[in-house]
């Protein structure tokens, strides 16, 4: 059997499995989470280690969306997983582990944004990492960073509850019901927060646009 003969079936199988419906893959992942949670609750710390390694990218991404390019993100991620570990006994499995994790992430992001709001720090455009785009010149990357710094600064001026509702609803594309469950608020309250955030961002960013992109 040659190496080439092995490549084709592997590639075909890969193509087939990668075309599994997303829902099936999510269910598989959920079942694995549930098994790991059960093991962790039984005292297997390695199972929790596996859980946090499975979800660390998810938490990092959500936290970045909620808090921006914050230098405290590593601390917050650690805090989130320790909080989840401590609260694992209260996790009843009615929702998925990922939903539970998301809820803790949102709570900790909220606390952090609230604390940060009391001691606001200017956002350093140079410290923002922009997703790589091919063919982007250094100048355009610098301009991207500046634009992002303006946006994040505007978001920093929006009250944390409104900001979180806006991010979850508009950026993450969640339904109002889903957001209301995550933030423990009624649907009309969430809708109001999103609307207010949108109004404030419009006011802040439209004004800045009028100042020809000056950083705030």
């Amino acid at each position, binding site marked *: 059997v040659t190496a080439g003969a092995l*490549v084709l079936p*592997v590639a075909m*199988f*890969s*193509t087939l*499995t*990668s*075309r599994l419906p*997303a829902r099936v*893959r999510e269910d*598989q*992942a959920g079942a*694995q989470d549930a098994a790991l949670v059960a093991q962790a609750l039984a005292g297997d*710390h*390695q199972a929790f*280690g*596996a859980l*946090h*390694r*499975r*979800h*660390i*990218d*998810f938490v*990092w*991404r959500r936290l970045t*969306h909620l808090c*921006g*390019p914050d230098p*405290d993100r*590593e*601390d917050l*991620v*650690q*805090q989130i*997983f*320790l*909080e989840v*570990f*401590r609260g694992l006994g209260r996790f009843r499995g009615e929702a998925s582990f990922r939903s539970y994790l998301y809820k803790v992430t949102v709570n900790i992001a909220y606390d952090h944004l609230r604390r940060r709001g009391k001691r606001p720090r200017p956002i350093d455009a140079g410290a*923002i*990492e922009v*997703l790589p*785009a*091919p063919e982007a010149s250094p100048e355009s990357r610098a301009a991207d960073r500046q634009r*992002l710094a303006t*946006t*994040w600064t505007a*978001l920093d001026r929006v009250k944390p509850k409104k900001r979180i509702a806006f*991010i979850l609803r*508009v*950026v*993450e*594309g969640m339904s109002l019901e889903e957001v209301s469950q995550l933030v423990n608020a009624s649907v009309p309250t969430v809708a109001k927060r999103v609307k207010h955030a*949108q*109004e404030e*961002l*419009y006011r802040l*960013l*439209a004004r800045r646009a009028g100042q020809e992109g000056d950083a705030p």
Partner: protein
Amino acid sequence: MTAPGRGGDGRDLVAAEVTEDVLATDDRLDDMRRARLAARIDAGLNHLAGGPAGAGTARTWRRPLLVGLVLGSAGMAAAVALAIVGAAGERGQPRPVRGLASTGDGVGTSPLGTGPGPGLPIAPPPSTLPASPSAILVERELSRAFDRLEVPAGTRVRARLGQRARMTLVGPAEVAVVVSRPGLTEVELTRGRMLADYDGRSGGKLRIHAPGLVAEVVGTLFAVEAEAGGSRVSVAHGEVAVLVEGRPAPIMVNAAQSIGAGTRAVQALAPAIRVELEDHARSAHRASASSAPTGPTSASAPPRRPASASPSEAPSPSAVYRMAEDAMRRRDRAQARRRLEQIVARFPSDRLADTARYELAQLALADGDRAGAARLLETLAQAGRDPQLRESAALARCRLDLEQGAERRAVRCLETFRTSRPASGRDAEALALLIDDASRRGACDDVIRLTADYQRLHPAGPFAREATQRRARCLLP
């Protein structure tokens, strides 16, 4: 991109722009950061699981202090009685230490009422105070709950705390024992600076409460500076878990680091404190060696550590890992490599050994040793204990093939990765690498097939926008 549920106006446009900017901010974790974060979480979990509070909340740390303080108030009379009898009376007179200014008994403990706090003297008032704070005057012993020590300004006092901690208090300082039982000693440092070394090899813990923070020590050389506005913990060797007020989880402070109650991040150890800590360690060892055999209380004194023993002996895997991390932060790759190799050699079955192997591979890569990196990644991918790290290693191995230009091998590697890990959280990354490779080869059929997969499986993935563009380029005539 438009904001859901809004009519089309400038507000929608701004919302769409904000969305685009939020999503354009890099929200990916690179492998090194992921490994480091995972190790940090593991260290925090080990601490939570192994601490006296078990898997309970860090808030329970405060409970012993509260209990201690309540007991302290209720038992003030007992404390007074204890103070009158005093450590001097019960455990012999304070011993002058070699090189002292010979000020007699009680020097270094505060006279009743001279300190700003309501401290209780444990010995008669000093007759004179030294001019220089650098002189260590007396050696005291604090071992029971309610034992209290005040050190006036301009004075240093060395004290033994329980059986395993030795401290130097730099006045004005005030310290009281809150809890003292086998395996746990808790003290409250209300003001002043405490330089201490603690030997926790038998499993005991030392917990120090200072304004704004609680430090828990397993075995280390460290300093606590207590100030009403916010205290600071500095570590020379080993590691200390510090719970800063207002934060739910303890922060591990490692060698050459410090943290203040008012700061949000671990900082470098101040050189002046480092020097003081080294002085403390040296003088404490000297005193131990010279006074142990003949000291007036040597018969009843707790066993002393040999003078050669270092507080950093037998460090835990997480302590060594933190040293490696610290070296990496300083860009001292040789030192980092030594520490990581130490973990692999000494603690091969610890989960941090896998992380260490992974980081060693990254270091090998940074040094241009691709073959060495490939070997380490291969080993980890096949025999690692942690499935997630095995996964990271497997993907990093595929990336290595890509970077080396071994495209066919890389494609096989990535496809195998995706096949064998259909529910992997790194699937989007593997798929993006395949798309990128196919684009570079100009294999538009593959690009179209793979980008369709990406859009279907990871519509909100970090590469989604790019995948759409690459697909469009291939579909254009």
